[in-house]
């Protein structure tokens, strides 16, 4: 927003509004907020029709707006996980259900277990209420899981790492190293195996395993030391040096926050405790600890390389998720019946207008956000050595080249890397 008022800096200005907008990947935080909004909405209902709508909305947005990065293909896995949750819940109702409910669908032969197993009997009468109860609950949890999966396949995890607070900078940097090194391990394994074959050691089994794993490990460790040397020579590890007062305040905040969480935990778990000791103290303690985290992060002085900005599309995406969640909360106060369909007596789930509108608000990002960039037609990018599974959309320094020097891939360590000026 401030960029529009600064025409003197063309690099900062938003591009001219075009329609359809230029392909770019949204801020990962926007996708996460959107998905969490959907998940919160799903947690407020057991109505299978609404849940199916939420599933459809999430799946549609994913199909329309995911890129072709490796993580974008993970949505299927979450769908499978959701199906597994539902099957698990229904199966447990059948096997261990204990025969609650009036509308008996069918009867299986009973297997009573001995007293050591708390007198549980397996199978027996299976009632419709039981199965439906398990299905509704399972579907709700599965929908929430699938919403998280939608965020996983839409949001770029590497760009998400950029948003880590400063206090976690070092840990985040080592995760970046891990993400960068992992593809290189495959190449390392291939090299070691080729060397083994050249020496005629084409054995299998235990010795071969050791003959591959140990050289690969040795290679990786040597690489890490070379990387550390490269980082140190570039001045990495120079933290600004927090003054003692800040450190003291940080420590006090962190410890007080954690103690507060302890108290809140006790309050939440013990129903006899006053209500103020419960969730408010728990969340308050978490907030104080978080404040300590933020304060502690100020020792790390860093600037972002091509920082992710929140533009209208991001705000709209996050807003769509928030609208869905908020409308669903609103309905819970007005018309709770259709959100939780009755199981006794059994009744058909019905839809009312506001929840449907709420869920439909979540589909807006499928139409109103820019398309994700495709790697099929790569823009002019500097040739890079092996590794770095990110396409042009990966505006992140870390993903990329990590060749001989090692530290090149670490955007965190150095800003003066001339090769890292791709499409602006």
């Amino acid at each position: 927003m401030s960029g529009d008022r600064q025409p003197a800096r063309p690099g900062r200005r938003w591009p001219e509004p075009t329609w359809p907008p230029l392909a770019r990947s949204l801020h990962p935080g926007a996708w996460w907020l959107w998905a969490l909004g959907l998940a919160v909405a799903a947690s407020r209902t057991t109505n299978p029709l609404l849940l199916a709508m939420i599933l459809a909305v999430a799946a549609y947005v994913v199909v329309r707006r995911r890129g072709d990065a490796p993580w974008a293909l993970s949505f299927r896995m979450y769908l499978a996980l959701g199906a597994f949750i539902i099957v698990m819940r229904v199966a447990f109702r059948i096997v261990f259900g204990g025969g609650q409910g009036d509308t008996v669908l069918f009867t299986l032969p009973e297997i009573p277990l001995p007293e050591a197993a708390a007198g549980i009997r397996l199978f027996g009468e299976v009632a419709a209420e039981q199965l439906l109860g398990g299905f509704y609950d399972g579907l709700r949890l599965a929908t929430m899981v699938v919403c998280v999966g939608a965020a996983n396949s839409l949001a770029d995890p590497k760009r998400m790492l950029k948003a880590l607070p400063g206090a976690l900078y070092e840990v985040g940097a080592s995760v970046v190293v891990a993400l960068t090194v992992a593809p290189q391990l495959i190449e390392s394994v291939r090299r070691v195996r080729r060397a083994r074959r050249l020496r005629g050691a084409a054995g299998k089994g235990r010795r071969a395993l050791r003959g591959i794993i140990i050289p690969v490990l040795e290679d990786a460790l040597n690489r890490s030391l070379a990387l550390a040397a490269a980082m140190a020579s570039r001045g990495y590890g120079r933290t600004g040096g927090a003054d003692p007062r800040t450190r003291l305040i940080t420590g006090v905040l962190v410890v007080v926050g954690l103690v507060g969480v302890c108290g809140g935990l006790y309050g939440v778990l013990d129903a006899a405790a006053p209500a103020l000791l419960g969730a408010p103290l728990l969340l308050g303690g978490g907030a104080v600890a978080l404040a300590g985290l933020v304060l502690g992060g100020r020792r790390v002085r860093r600037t972002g390389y091509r920082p992710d900005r929140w533009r209208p599309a991001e705000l709209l995406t996050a807003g769509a998720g928030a609208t869905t969640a908020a409308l669903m909360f609103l309905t819970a106060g007005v018309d709770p019946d259709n959100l939780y369909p009755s199981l006794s007596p059994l009744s058909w789930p019905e839809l009312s207008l506001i929840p449907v509108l709420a869920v439909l608000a979540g589909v807006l990002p499928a139409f109103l956000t820019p398309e994700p960039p495709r790697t099929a037609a790569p823009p002019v990018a500097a040739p890079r050595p092996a590794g770095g599974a990110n396409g042009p959309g990966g505006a992140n320094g870390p993903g990329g080249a990590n060749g001989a020097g090692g530290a090149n891939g670490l955007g965190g360590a150095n800003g003066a890397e001339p090769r890292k000026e791709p499409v602006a």
Partner: protein
Amino acid sequence: MTTTPRPGDTPPPAAATDPGAPPPCDTPPVPAPASDVTRGDAAPGSRAVGPDRTDGATEATGVTGATSGGPAVAAPVAVPGAARPAPVAPPKRQPTARSRVTALRVGPRAAVTLLVASLLGLAMFCWPLLVPPQPQGVAHAAQAPMLFVVLLPIILAVVLAELTEGGLDPKTLALLGVLAALNAALRPLGAGTAGIETVFFLLILAGRVFGPGFGFALGATSLFASALLTAGVGPWLPFQMMAAAWVGLGAGLLPRRPSGRAEIAMLAAYGAASAYLFGFVMNLWFWPFAIGDGTQLSFDPEAGPMTNLHTFFLYTLATSAFGWDTGRAITNIIAIAVLGPAVLATLRRAARRAAFDTPVSFAAAEPQGARRP
């Protein structure tokens, strides 16, 4: 990620002549390509020569840092970090080949945080057994797990931030990253086939070699990186990270004395025990979610802890103890027994080359140092 600010667009010809670069120093006992980095708390062990100059360099380079453009292979340049003019003191102890190194030093504050956070985490894992049997407990129990899902990431973040509070040595950081990558690459190897879980054996061995703090951080980062690589991010991730971090922490806290075969036997036993415990706490946390209420194996908020423990025991037996947990334990035992000695030797060699505990001494910088502001 992010970059440090750079003073100009053109990189300086070499790091050694960069006005922002720290003075060169000599580190006699370090065979590694890079010399060690002295931190504020490591300062007593360092023999600082020419303290005034070193201090001036610290202030001068506090913001700009060194830029790249120098040779990719490190010149023997140490970054003095928060080095203060320390009194000349002999090094406290020389690391021997057998003693463990401490790649990530856990200060007292971090230790307290770690302890409190571990207790909190344990309570969040075991909440189904902690709820007292009261009828009103139902409402609370329904709300508690959602709060925990929100809070555990914060607690984990706070602990990791405290562990790296003094700034992380680049060598530690790089080792952490590379070992986490290895773990993350090992993880999909056995996923899905009857609980053959290959994450833990390297985690245990690395925790043994590099110490408890490093083990904790490695457990957390391994699972995090693995989740990012295979897109397994979800509400379960903080719980997995915490449990794996405990596995690494415990491996670092095992008694130091055993070596040779005794060490391998101890580590294998620890591997088996930690496999079962990991499965136990993960199961316990996910139990109320996995099957919901309304079955005979469900969590019952109105029953007492012992009844719930019994129910949970049956649930674990019915679902995972024989398949997943036993598979995981057997994988750990076999991997540690077969690969353990060689991997331990490799890791120890890397630790020796990294020379974590070696004190750094700064020599007076010659001509370049004289031009320092």
